């Protein structure tokens, strides 16, 4: 490489470094700074319109005996595990069913994406109406089938979270299907040919070959969905507002209540830092995984 080549590379690098300045500055001001600010006010008793005082770990020790928050964390866990596991299983099943090349399948693959683009708040209001305890269409037909749902799906404490999970499944299974379909299409064909020559049945082929080969895609789909499920807010806000009682109050709703309704900004920040840690841990696993995959 000649000197003039090296100079050209250097010139190119210097020019392109400027391209990275806006996004770096933006992310520092509007992403890193708020997050760090949030971590810091978690150690104060900040309330809106008052000067904050440092109160050390008081928020965190209060949290340990804050039953409402702890319960909201459990509700979050149940929601995420319940929704994501069903979405993965359904997603896998539907991806298999749709993994054929013809016009109809192509149409269905387009069509099933509609829930993912449906404004979540509107989806929530629609399902709320379908679940209406007296007039809702779903309530009507479930009762018609003779299934006992008490005063209604979103009125009974024991049923409300399940009803919300169904909405999330409706909304996000299509994403699973699309990701897993992409994974299925990229599988190598050689192992299948070898297995067929050996006379292996379809079921063992699925469990011994397809599933292990699909593992990387499944893991990525699982991580993406878990991170997004952790953000759930709109549909719950629209359907139950966290009720009945606190049966559908996930951590996000609880934090909103403490920070915005009760104006206890410092304490809400401390609560949200717990979610921050959970999100960052899952996120780092995800990032590590992408690095590994790309070598």
């Amino acid at each position: 490489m000649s000197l003039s080549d090296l100079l050209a590379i250097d010139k190119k690098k210097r020019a392109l470094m400027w391209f990275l300045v806006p996004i770096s500055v933006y992310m520092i001001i509007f992403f890193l700074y708020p997050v760090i600010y949030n971590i810091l006010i978690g150690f104060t008793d900040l309330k809106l319109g008052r000067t904050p005082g440092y109160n050390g770990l008081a928020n965190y020790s209060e949290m340990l005996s804050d039953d409402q928050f702890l319960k909201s964390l459990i509700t979050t866990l149940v929601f995420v595990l319940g929704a994501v596991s069903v979405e993965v299983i359904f997603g896998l099943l539907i991806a298999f069913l749709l993994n054929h090349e013809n016009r109809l399948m192509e149409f269905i693959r387009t069509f099933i994406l509609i829930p993912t683009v449906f404004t979540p708040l509107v989806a929530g209001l629609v399902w709320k109406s379908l679940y209406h305890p007296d007039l809702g269409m779903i309530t009507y037909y479930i009762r018609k089938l003779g299934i006992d749902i008490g005063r209604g799906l979103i009125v009974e404490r024991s049923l409300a979270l399940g009803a919300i999970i169904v909405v999330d499944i409706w909304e996000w299974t299509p994403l699973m299907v699309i990701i897993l379909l992409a994974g299925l299409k990229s599988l190598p064909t050689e192992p299948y040919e070898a297995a067929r020559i050996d006379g292996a049945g379809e079921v063992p082929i699925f469990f011994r070959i397809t599933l292990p080969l699909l593992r990387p895609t499944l893991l990525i789909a699982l991580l993406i969905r878990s991170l997004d499920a952790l953000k759930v807010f709109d549909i719950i806000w629209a359907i139950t507002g966290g009720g009945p009682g606190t049966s559908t109050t996930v951590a996000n709703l609880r934090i909103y209540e403490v920070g915005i309704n009760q104006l206890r900004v410092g304490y809400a920040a401390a609560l949200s830092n717990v979610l921050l840690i959970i999100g960052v841990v899952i996120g780092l696993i995800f990032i590590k995984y992408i690095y590994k995959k790309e070598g």
Partner: protein
Amino acid sequence: MALVGRNGTLHSTLNFFRVLVIFLILIFIAFPVVWILSTSLSQRISMFKLPPKLFTSFILDNYKYVFSHMAITSWIFNSLLISVGTMVFSLIIGVPAGYAFSRIEFKGKKLLLVMILLTRALPTIVLVMPFRVIMQNFGLLGTRTAVILIDTVYNAAFTFWLMSGIFESIPSELEDSARIDGCNPVQAFLYIAIPLSKPGLVTSALFAFIFSWNDFLFALTLTSPDTTTLPLGMLSTFGILQQGWTYMAAMGVLAIFPVILLSLLLQKYYVSGLTFGGVK
């Protein structure tokens, strides 16, 4: 890759099972969409009849009502302004950065990528709470700008990630030879790389628009009554209207129509954007 059932009876049983399951799935997916459309065209009174029926009438009264009795034009205007603002802003800071990221090595490259990817991992409530306080200090709380600023955090990151992948798949030889012919790096980016990356640009723009259009939490926490967006406006009337489902449905159709239409028209781009973050 038709793996399931290649022989005789097993094949036809599985085929029947396949058709049945697909049919049920389609009903499950379509039902809320059909319901909202049907309700938006119904008479109010028909909502209180059991058993519930779909498409009992086709009247536009609900649409007329929401336009004449509610501030829906201003909500749509606010939603549009925020969505387009976010889209433009995210492209301006995300696209050149994604390009530079794919073309040069530098110190802190990994750190920048981790920061970008962490935006996806961060629960939105964690960002929105301090954001409110900061916006208040800037005097921006209650403005559309505040919503655009927070939406851009997520969308610029998405654009950056998507575009760096796209530019990586475009060989740099073309730009190098253009540079020998006297193009500077910025010109090479603008006149060679950009035209070659149209699919990525469309995908980025589409996702920024959909993200902002569908947002509720940020609008809820950062806007004021004057700057209310469509989802938020809908919700504020839902309580007042007491069982005003037909009006709600009409507004809902107006909310979902643009995004569903965009995603169907730009289906190829929409799918490639949906698998962001790992599956290429």
